[in-house]
C-alpha cells in the first residue's frame, strides 16, 4: 500500500512540477520537453488508477504525435516568445481570477458529489470493475465485436472522404517537369554519346 502511495506522490509531484516548468521556462523547446515529461507522469497516474489503456493512448497519441508536432511548430515557426511573454505580469490578475473561479467550481463539484445521497455509489457505478477483463480487452470487444458493423461503416465513410478529397482537388499540372524513371531506363544508347575530353581543351 505504501509503495502505491509513494508512486502516486512521485508521479503527482513530477507532473505538477513539469507543468509549472512548461509555462515558466524561457526556451520554448524546453517547454515542450517538460510537457512530454508531464504527459509521461500523467500516464503513470493512469496506470495507478487501473486505466492502462488510457495510459498507453496518452503516451502514443500525446507524446508520440501531439508533442512532436508542437516541437516541429516551435522549431519551424519564427515566433518571438520573449515578446509574447512580455505582458505576463499585466495579465496575471485576470488569469489568476479565472484560475480562482475554476478552483472554486471544482470544489463545489467535489463537495456536491460527496454530499448528495448515494454519491459514493454513483462514483463506483461510473467505473464498474469487470472480473478478469482488462479495459483494453473490454474496449476491443466493444469496438471490434459488438460494434463491428459501425466500425466497418466508419472505415468506409473515411474512404469516401478520401476519394472525395482526391476527386475534388487532385489535378495533374502540365507546367512542371517530372521524373519518369521507366522512360529513362528505356532510353537506348543512341541518345547518349560518350566523348573523351582532353585536358585543357573543350569540346
Amino acid at each position, binding site marked *: 500500500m505504501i509503495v502505491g502511495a509513494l508512486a502516486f506522490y512521485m508521479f503527482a509531484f513530477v507532473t505538477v512540477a513539469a507543468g509549472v516548468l512548461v509555462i515558466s521556462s524561457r526556451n520554448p523547446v524546453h517547454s515542450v520537453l517538460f510537457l512530454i515529461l508531464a504527459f509521461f507522469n500523467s500516464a503513470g497516474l493512469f496506470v495507478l488508477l487501473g486505466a492502462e489503456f488510457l495510459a498507453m493512448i496518452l503516451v502514443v497519441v500525446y507524446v508520440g504525435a501531439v508533442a512532436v508536432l508542437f516541437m516541429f511548430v516551435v522549431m519551424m515557426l519564427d515566433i518571438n516568445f520573449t515578446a509574447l511573454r512580455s505582458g505576463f505580469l499585466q495579465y496575471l490578475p485576470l488569469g489568476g481570477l479565472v484560475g480562482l473561479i475554476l478552483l472554486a467550481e471544482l470544489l463545489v463539484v467535489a463537495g456536491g458529489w460527496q454530499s448528495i445521497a448515494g454519491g459514493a455509489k454513483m462514483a463506483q457505478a461510473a467505473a464498474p470493475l469487470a472480473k478478469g477483463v482488462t479495459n483494453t480487452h473490454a474496449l476491443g470487444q466493444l469496438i471490434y465485436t459488438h460494434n*463491428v*458493423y459501425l466500425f466497418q*461503416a466508419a472505415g*468506409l*465513410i473515411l*474512404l469516401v472522404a478520401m*476519394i*472525395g478529397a482526391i476527386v*475534388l482537388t487532385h489535378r495533374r499540372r502540365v507546367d512542371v517537369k517530372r521524373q519518369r524513371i521507366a522512360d529513362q531506363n528505356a532510353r537506348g544508347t543512341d541518345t547518349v554519346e560518350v566523348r573523351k575530353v582532353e585536358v585543357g581543351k573543350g569540346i
Partner: protein
Amino acid sequence: MSIDQIIPALPEVFVACMVMALLMLGVFQKGALADQDVKSFRLISGLSVGVLGLTVLLVVMLADRQLMAFNNMFVVDGFATYAKVLVLIASAAAIVLSAGYLERHGVARFEYAVLVVFATLGMMMMISANDLISLYMGLEMQSLSLYVVAAFQREDQRSTEAGLKYFVLGALASGMLLYGASLVYGFAGTTNFSVLADLLKGGAPSVGLVVGIVFVVAGLAFKVSAVPFHMWTPDVYEGAPTPVTAFFSVAPKIAALALFTRVMMEPFGDAADSWRQVIIFVSVASMVLGAVAAVAQRNIKRLMAYSSIGHVGYVLIGLCVANEAGVRGILVYLAIYLVMNVGAFACILCMKRGDRMVEQISDLAGMSKTHPMIAFALLVFMFSMAGVPPLAGFFAKLYIFWAAIDAGLVGVAVIGVLTSVIGAFYYLRIVRVMYFEDAEDPLDAGVSRELKILIGVAAFIICFFFIQPNLILEPAAAAAKALLAG
C-alpha cells in the same frame, strides 16, 4: 461472431467489396494524362451497373422474412427489400443517364460511378438501420458521397457552389439529427429501434423524448428536402450537373423517405399522436410551397426541385396517417415517383444546343416538331406528375389521399388535391411551350440510345400502369405489412 450473423447484410457486404474492387480497378487502369479518361470511365460505369443489378438479385433472395444482424443494429424485412430494390434501380439508372453528359463536359472520370455506388451503399444501410447509430452511419456515407458528386464538375463555378452549399447545410442537418438522437438516448436510455418501440408501448413518451423526436424529424426532413428545411434544394439542383440532379431527385429521396417512414413507424409508432401534427405541418407546407413557388421558375432544373418538394409533401401525407394503408401509399408513390422522375430527367438531358446543355423552360419551344417522340414522352411524364388519370401519377396520389380520408385526415387530403391543381398549371406550361410555341433555334437532333431506351421504358410504365397495378401494389402492401408487423 459467426458467419450467419453476416448473411442478412450480404447485399451490403457484396456492394462494399465490389465498390472497393472497382476503385482499385479504376486507379490502376488510369494511365492517361488527361483530366478525363473516357475508357476507364465507361468500363467502371458499366461494371457498376452490373454490380447494382447483381445486388438487386441478392436483395430479393433474402426477401422472405425479418432478419436481424450485428446485435440488432441491422434489419432486413419486406419493407427494406422493397425500398432497396427501388434505390438500386434508381442508382443504376442515374449511372446510365450520366454517361453522355459527363463525357461531353470533359469530366468523365471513373470516380463518379464509384461514388454513386458508395452513396447507394449508404442508402441501403439507411434503409436497413435498426438503431440510431447505424442510421447516422448510413446517412453520412450517403451524404458524403453526394456532396462530392454535386461538386463533380469542379471547373464549373455553379457546381462547386452547389457542392459547398449542400455540404454546409447537410452538416447542419446532421448536427440537428445527432442532437435529437442524443436527447432520445438520454431520455429513453437506448438507441435501438426495437427497444424504443417496446418502451413506448408502455405509455405516453416523456417531454424530453418528444423534443428528441422532433429534432430527429428536423434532421430527416432536411434530407428529404421538406419545408421548412428545403432551402438548399433549388440551388443544389440547379447548380449540380444535370445527371447528378437526376440522381439526387430520385435515389436519395427514396432512401431518406423509406428511412423516415421506418423511424416514425417502428420505434416511434406508438407515439404517433405526439409527432403527428409536426408531420402534418411539414407535409402541408411542402405541398403548398412546391406548388406555388414552382409557378415562377424559368429554369427547368429549379422547377423540378420545387416539384420534388411538392412530391415529398404528398408522400408525407402517408406518414401522417401512420397506419398500414398510409405506408402502402408511400411505397406505391415512391415507385411511381422513381419512374416519372427518371423519365423526366432523361428528357431534360436530351435538351442540348450546339453540344451544350440548355436548361431554360423556353428552350423547350418547338420540341414537338424537332423531337416528336421525346416531346410526347415528356408530356406523359408531366401529365403523370400533375396527376391526370389514367397515368400512374394519378394512382400514386389516389392511394395516398384515400388512406388520409380513411384515417379522418380530410383537411390534409383536400389541401393535397388543391395543391395538385395548382401544380398542374406549371406542368401544363411545359407542355404548352413544347407544343404551341415555335423555336427560334431548335435543339440538337441526336439523342443517345441509352436515353431513348430509358425514356421509352419509363413512358411505357407510366402509361400502362393501370392495366396491371398489382405489379407494384402487391409488393408494396406486403412491404407495408412487414414494417407494421416488425
